[in-house]
């Protein structure tokens, strides 16, 4: 439950071995590489390699095939093509692309034909009932015929043109259009066309290949459309079959190229002087032996290990060490930010407090177990990262449900069990103990805040940050002040008078003054001289407001924990509503209401409680001792999932 200890690794050797060394580093899986230029610098003659990656263009072509075909290449054993030349591979990829492009062109042509035929079919299908041959209609010499559609609005306006020599016959009506044709004497066609234009008539031009009457034409066109679709399907099949045939070789080529590409990119992080290279990075301390063994075969390469903080320019990366229970909760810690190398790993604390707080708020034996099972299934089948967390907090909810005597909203179901066992103080009925729950929530919050402040004090002393540890609001001064106020207040409520003048001056006012003067006091403790910047008035003003903010913070942070009690009550109340509803419906519908109600409450309450607990963790707990400014440990490796842009 701590932070993995690291070693700083310095690797030097001849440039002829650089690529082999980089392959070894990317395969070992435990080397976090830093840019050597950060510490080598130019003054001792080191330069960095700035080369174009030769594998990138060809990998890009392969990536295009992947994107266009929708197939993702994965890592594959490429030992049998290890020695194949780059030019041979390049030619092969060009051939594959050409073949795929040919099939696509064929499919595109078929698609264009389909579009034309479908368009004609759409038009002809609106003219069903027209038994005359299209060719005959269009070959009339004295009468012009225009096919198309007229907006419904315009159809109503035709009445206005009663005196004009045309006839509009419609075959079908769509939402906004009348489909049909108008007949007009050739001598008046210009005038009538103009009228229909002004009425927004959209003319349909039937293609020359449409023969016969509307029914015959429609049948013929449907046949053409089916043929086009079949051709497109054949092309698709041909495309997929070809890719299936080549996929194994393409996968191997992708793995080989990606490996060479990523290793080549690592060259940019090495520093070069003359014919020598220099690489720097970190490995976990427990991997030292294995790591050193990897370089035994290199004669010209030397590996030197140093303590992780040996070089001030390089900040050691963070790898959290967690036990099985707290491991899934590292997701929340990483979400906030990793601790610094000399900091504390808060995952265990988060795991315990999150599980506890969620369980208290979500307490229901049945719902908790359902949540735990759902979490386990999500992890098993979908590898959903929240799954293991759901399992843990679900079990916690079930335990608290057991204490509350609540099973899927039935609050009396466990009463006989407790009676039979002779346990009189359980179940703890939520609705009968509202005040106790709210006071308990605040008490639990205060306890968590005290622990957070204590962690901050210990870490502050360990890291020699005395201002924070001794005189800060989350230091000893803050702890004494906050604790004294709470103890005094509780004692007064219980009728014990301890808030006398000495108590107030020593335990409340003095810590307040210490917080006010924390900067000069910290300098004094360290034996340094304090320089006041901006004069005494600035000092007083800024520290007055900061201390005022501390005081507000104590009050609001404490009250913030009241939400724990609030959610305990809301969960119970929502289930009460579900139960009341189930009693009001028929006996047959009652189980459905109970099931749906439980699903609804689990969804809504689970989400709300999950978010609120995370909020308490981040705002009320982390803010007291945790900065989250560490950088993650990321060992170099070939990333087969990443696309090449």
């Amino acid at each position, binding site marked *: 439950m701590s932070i993995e200890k690291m070693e700083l690794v310095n690797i030097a050797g001849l440039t002829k071995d650089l690529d082999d060394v980089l392959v070894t580093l990317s395969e070992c899986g435990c080397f976090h590489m830093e840019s050597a230029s950060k510490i080598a610098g130019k003054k001792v003659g080191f330069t960095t390699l700035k080369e174009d990656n030769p594998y990138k263009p060809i990998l890009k072509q392969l990536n295009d095939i992947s994107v266009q075909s929708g197939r993702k290449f994965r890592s594959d054993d490429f030992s049998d093509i290890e020695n194949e030349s780059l030019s041979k591979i390049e030619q092969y990829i060009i051939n594959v692309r050409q073949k795929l492009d040919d099939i696509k062109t064929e499919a595109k042509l078929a698609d264009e034909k389909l579009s034309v035929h479908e368009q004609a079919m759409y038009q002809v299908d609106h003219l069903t009932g027209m038994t005359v041959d299209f060719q005959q209609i269009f070959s009339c010499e004295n009468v012009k015929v225009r096919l198309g559609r007229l907006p419904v609005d315009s159809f109503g306006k035709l009445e206005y043109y009663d005196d004009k020599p045309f006839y509009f016959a419609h075959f079908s009506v769509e939402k906004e259009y009348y489909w049909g044709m108008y007949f007009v004497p050739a001598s008046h066609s210009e005038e009538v066309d103009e009228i229909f234009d*002004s009425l927004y008539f959209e003319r349909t031009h039937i293609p020359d290949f449409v023969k016969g009457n509307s029914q015959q034409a429609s049948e013929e066109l449907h046949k053409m459309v089916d043929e086009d679709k079949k051709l497109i399907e054949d092309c698709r099949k041909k495309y997929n079959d070809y890719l299936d045939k080549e996929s194994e070789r393409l996968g191997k080529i992708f793995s080989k190229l990606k490996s060479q590409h990523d290793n080549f990119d690592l060259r940019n992080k090495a520093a070069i002087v003359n014919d020598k290279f220099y690489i720097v990075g970190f490995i976990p301390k427990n991997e030292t032996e294995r790591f050193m063994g990897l370089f035994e075969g290199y004669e010209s390469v030397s590996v030197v290990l140093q303590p992780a903080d040996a070089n001030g320019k390089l900040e050691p990366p963070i790898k959290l060490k967690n036990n099985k229970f707290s491991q899934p909760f590292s997701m929340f810690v990483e979400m906030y930010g990793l601790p610094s190398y000399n900091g504390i790993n808060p995952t265990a604390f988060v795991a315990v407090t999150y599980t506890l707080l969620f369980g208290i708020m979500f307490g229901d034996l049945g719902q908790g177990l359902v949540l735990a099972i759902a979490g386990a299934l999500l992890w098993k089948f979908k590898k959903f990262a929240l799954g293991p967390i759901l399992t843990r907090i679900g079990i916690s909810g079930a335990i608290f449900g057991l204490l509350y005597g609540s099973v899927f909203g039935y609050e009396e179901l466990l009463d006989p069990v407790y009676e039979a066992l002779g346990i009189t103080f359980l179940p703890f009925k939520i609705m009968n103990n509202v005040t106790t729950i709210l006071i308990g929530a605040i008490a639990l919050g205060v306890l968590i805040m005290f622990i957070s402040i204590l962690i901050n004090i210990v870490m502050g002393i360990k890291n020699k940050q005395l201002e924070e540890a001794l005189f800060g609001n989350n230091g000893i001064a803050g702890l004494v002040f906050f604790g004294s106020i709470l103890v005094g207040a509780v004692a007064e409520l219980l009728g014990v008078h301890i808030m006398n003048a000495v108590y107030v001056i020593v335990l409340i006012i003095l810590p307040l003054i210490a917080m006010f003067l924390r900067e000069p006091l910290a300098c004094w403790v360290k034996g340094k001289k304090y320089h006041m910047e901006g004069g005494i008035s600035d000092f007083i003003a800024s520290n007055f407001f900061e201390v005022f903010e501390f005081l507000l913070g104590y009050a609001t942070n404490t009250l913030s924990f009241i939400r724990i009690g609030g959610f305990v009550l809301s969960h119970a109340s929502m289930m009460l509503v579900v139960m009341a509803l189930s009693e009001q419906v028929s006996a047959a519908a009652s189980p459905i209401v109970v099931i749906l109600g439980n699903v609804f409450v689990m969804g809504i309450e689970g989400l709300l409680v999950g978010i609120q607990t995370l909020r308490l963790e981040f705002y009320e707990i982390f803010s007291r001792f945790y900065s989250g400014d560490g950088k993650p440990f990321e060992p170099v490796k070939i990333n087969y999932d990443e696309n090449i842009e």
Partner: protein
Amino acid sequence: MIRRRNYNATVAKIMAIYGKRLTSQDYMELMNKQSVSEAAEYLKRNTHYSDLLSSIDINTIHRGMLENLLRRSIFDTYMKITGFEHISKQEFYNYKILQIEIDEILRCIRFINAGSEKLISDIPIYLQELISFDLIELARVTDFKELLVFLKKTPYDDVLKTVKTDADGKVDVTECETVLRTYYIERLKRSLNFKKSDVDQFISFLETDIDLINVINSYRLTAFFDASADDIEKDMLPVGGRLSPVKKREIYSAINSEEFIKRFSKTIYGRQMIENGYDINDLERSANKLRYKYAKLMLKRSQSAPLSVYSFIFLLEIEVKNIISIIEGIRYGVEPSKIAPLIIM
């Protein structure tokens, strides 16, 4: 005592529809389209006009038809919101029909004067059942005398009877507009049968709007027709707003457009235009922007159905006008930077 209903659901529905209005981003996207089809495609895919355009083939749509459809959408929305709690039977809500009837009569008069026969193509035939006269027959009217005969059994006969025709049988359109709009305002005022505070608020909005319409019309008469103060006064809507008769007279007496703007800038509306950063030299557009602003304010502040309906439909009409301006701009290849100032919002 009969208690007047609040029709809060109608107000809520209006606010929900108003929430879907076009944003400046939408206008920007529309202005940058290369063709009317592209603009229609954008409206169909990204805005509250998608239902309206769902069955329309946007690749072949005619600009005129698109504009008619957009205008029709205003009326469809009006029917939807007034039908929601069945308030359309109350006299006040007849105002939209009244407006449309007056607009159609005025359009007919303009066509008569211009000698054009194209009136039929843009007539809103879908409203025939709600209109008090036959729209097809109105389109067949060829002179003013015939129009009066046609309108014989409608209230518009009395209104238009006073308008004199010239030797060619033509009439002054401005005069016709003034008498018809005055009739509309009187009818509207008579129908204000709701809470006194709402009536006061509505009257205040209406009078402000009329003030601004009068400003726009008087500015046009001064700038383009060198009209005298007497002539201008005669053609203005005779409703008092926040400008006193003396102040109005002073503005109407301006000898040219520059002087007009100078005098107008000292009025309450002029000052508001300047405060809001509107270009007072582009008086017509700035006045319309102010009208839009007042309507928006009324919609946001009002919890009463009639005020919400009136202001919302007013804003919707401006939105449609904006879209039509953009579509016309696209059709004639106008640069987006030149269309942008035409947008009122």
